[in-house]
């Protein structure tokens, strides 16, 4: 019917000519079969196949794994970004994020630097790998990056423990490529032999004008000449001079944030000049503000899944771990509540999500939760 109408419209014949010409000379998409997504895949491959090419001992508890592509090229990344490694460990399919510690201009390999975590499932597995081992990762991800559009080129980096890794990438890139930036690193550790990259950082600070290194050791040997104690406001002030022209980056264990962030706030550093890396699910979740006192942290609940299957889930363990432990594969990336990849729908029951987890407002309204930072407070029913 519509074509009958069209025939009577002014300009119909001319337009039919236009259509005929377009069909004759127009675009042919068929040669693009299978290649429509090439440009995206070069930047953001879904999965990257990697091979361990070298293992470097850093400290008694830490090793660096050098990873080369098992095939093709590595996608680009920005300093401060992480990759997530995927594992199938005895039927438990899980994933862990690791910041890339090598510089992005090094395109032949990525390095990750892993600290052994007592009782940790994955770190212990990773640290026992030797050259030749195969791994699978996500593409690089994360927003703990320097943004030249809005950040001043003077960076104050505050690291604790294995939180040094993203900064190592930033520092190496800045020095190797002689970027117009200044970096001051305040790096806190419990003991002197915990300090990762200590020699390299000292050497970089000596040779590069852009970089200052201030290690701070809480419990050093008696004759240690450097700074002792914790990173605090007076030290930050002394290291920075003026605050207004600096951007602050913080990465480390939860204790570092608890200690340092209030001090930065007291120094009136605005949030637009402060970036904090995510750091996984909180360790002792029952100590978080808002944890309901009536729920025993040793309690165990039952999660009902589609199809009526059940999974046991302890209160103090992120839901995603309990699901994984029972053989379910849940997509995940950041494992810290921020990327929403592990989003699932709660049909009934109560969970605890620590304050500040960025869940979309309408997701909250419709009962979606981020399973990597959700803790059961009752029996649950969920939709995957």
């Amino acid at each position, binding site marked *: 019917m519509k074509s009958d109408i069209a025939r009577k*419209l002014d300009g119909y014949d001319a337009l039919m000519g236009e259509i005929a010409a377009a069909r004759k000379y127009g675009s042919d998409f068929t040669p*693009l079969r299978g290649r429509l997504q090439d440009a995206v895949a070069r930047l953001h491959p879904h999965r990257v196949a990697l091979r361990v090419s070298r293992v470097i001992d850093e400290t008694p508890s830490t090793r660096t794994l050098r990873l080369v592509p098992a095939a093709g090229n590595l996608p680009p990344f920005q300093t401060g970004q992480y990759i997530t490694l995927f594992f199938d460990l005895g039927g438990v399919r899980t994933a862990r994020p690791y910041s890339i510690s090598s510089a992005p201009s090094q395109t032949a390999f990525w390095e990750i630097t892993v600290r052994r975590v007592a009782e940790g499932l994955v770190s212990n597995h990773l640290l026992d790998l030797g050259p030749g081992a195969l791994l699978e990762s996500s593409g690089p991800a994360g927003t703990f990056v320097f943004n030249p559009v809005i950040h001043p080129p003077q960076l104050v980096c505050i690291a604790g423990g294995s939180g040094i890794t993203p900064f190592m990438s930033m520092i190496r890139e800045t020095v190797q490529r002689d970027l117009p930036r200044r970096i001051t690193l305040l790096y806190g550790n419990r003991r002197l032999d915990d300090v990762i990259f200590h020699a390299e950082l000292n050497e970089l600070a000596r040779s590069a004008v852009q970089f200052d290194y201030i290690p701070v050791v809480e419990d050093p040997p008696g004759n240690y000449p450097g700074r002792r104690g914790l990173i605090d406001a007076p030290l930050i002030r002394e290291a920075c001079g003026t605050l207004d022209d600096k951007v602050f980056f913080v990465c480390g264990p939860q204790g570092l944030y608890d200690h340092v962030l209030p001090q930065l706030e007291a120094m009136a550093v605005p949030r637009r000049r402060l970036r904090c890396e995510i750091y996984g699910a909180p360790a002792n979740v029952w100590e978080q503000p808002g944890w309901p006192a009536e729920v025993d942290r040793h309690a165990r609940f039952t999660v009902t899944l589609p199809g009526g299957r059940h999974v046991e889930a302890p209160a103090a363990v992120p839901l995603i771990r309990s699901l994984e432990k029972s053989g379910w594969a849940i997509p995940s990336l950041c494992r810290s509540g921020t990327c929403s990849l592990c989003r699932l729908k709660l049909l009934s029951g109560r969970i605890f999500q620590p304050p500040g987890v960025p869940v979309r407002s309408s997701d909250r309204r419709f009962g979606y939760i981020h399973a990597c930072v959700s803790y059961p407070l009752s029996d649950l029913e969920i939709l995957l």
Partner: protein
Amino acid sequence: MADYEAIVIGAGNGGLTAAATLAQHGVRTLLLERHNVPGGCATSFCRGRFEFEVALHQLSGIGTEEKPGPLRLLLARLGVLDRLELVPMDDLYRVVIPEVIDITLKPDRDATVAALQAHFPAHKDGIAEWFDLLWGLFGEVIGAFYFKDPQVTREKYPLFHRYALQTSAAEMDRCLKDPVLKTVASAYWTYMGLPPSRLALTDMAALYFAYSEFLPYHLRGGSQALSNALAQSVLDAGGDIRFNCGVRRILVDDEGVAGVVTEAGDTIAARQVVSNVSKVATYVDLIEADRVPLAVLDELRQARIGPSAFTVYLGLDAEAADLGMTASTTFIVGDTDPDRIYARMFQREIGPRDGMLLTCYNAIDPGFSPPGTCQAALVTLKYGESWRDVPPRDYADEKYRIAADMLSAAERVFPGLRGRVEEMEIATPLTHQRYLGHPQGAIYGFDHHVKDSPLFVANRPHIRGLYGAGGWYGSGGFQPTLESGVAAARAVLRHLNRSEAR
């Protein structure tokens, strides 16, 4: 035995309304989405303390309770209206040509005409004539197509017969003359992606009619709230949804569509499939080449992939008013020649002569971000080609460089903007391609030239049981894509002989 009666691939606007309509009519329906959230373009993402709206600037077709627009009625039929908080915008838009004009129009035809006449007294009559033409023409389109008049004759529909196949520029030049006036009165062309010299006059009329008569709207919680509400109505009606579940093959046998194969390798059988995936990917990637009808390839050949966008999402640590964001929608236009602006849509660079749109949601919804902050999206249209060949290792630097240029251009209207940015995310055509799967990241589907109108390219199944929904099978934009999903579902229902009553 089929696993489902119908499978919908993609949970963009079109896929969501298709799945909701099917499920509500008792069709055993499965909705498959590659991403982990519903919505496609109609989504949001969190950065720091902000939740960024990806796509929705102004929702059209809603109207008021007393004078409901077509989209309000559609959402009510789908049972999602009660789950949404609709916020009408008090401005149509503000247009700024730096150092030339700064004017804000109201979503009311008479007020718009009066404001323009006050500013451009020399063109008083032409302004009235232009708006008469737009309203007259679109009134005829409504009569002929929305109310499905069986006799669309020249006598009853003279404007339609005369102008249906014309572009906008000739009449606009005749009525409005002054380039500044034309720029102000046609700023919405960017919502369709073609400048007046290429944009069908009926499309121009549709834009101004729809936003003026039914008001532009904002959704509290952003477009994700709509997508989540639609997904919920799929579930409520007994439909199934699988996220993180892309489709890599649509199976076709001698009887037509037979099912789909997911990226994880599962085969799911169904005789009805609605694809919300781009028409290009659907027929070039998802279906075996020897099953693709030549007629589709002809249609694809006549089409040109439309523009994508370059967007800077801004979380700002200042109130909207303090940044001069008085209107929710501000067009910043650096050139009164839309053809030159259009030509620059093929280049990667962004500069002071480009056109761009800044939407500040807090201007009408103060709670859209935390107290003391506001959120804005700065967007300009760009064809995807210019980004395709950026070397991967330069990609991030290129994003920052161009975002900085874009902010500088916007700072002519909003001074000090850059100094208040707390969170920023940059989306290029490749970003849109990554999250939507659409070739070249096109956000409105194909270019919508007159020759591509549904009068000539009908959205009909080329393969038995395969239907299209979304911007690639009609018009882009929220209202058209939401409508297209319902239309696709109705075609499935007719095929299955299900009653459409509800």
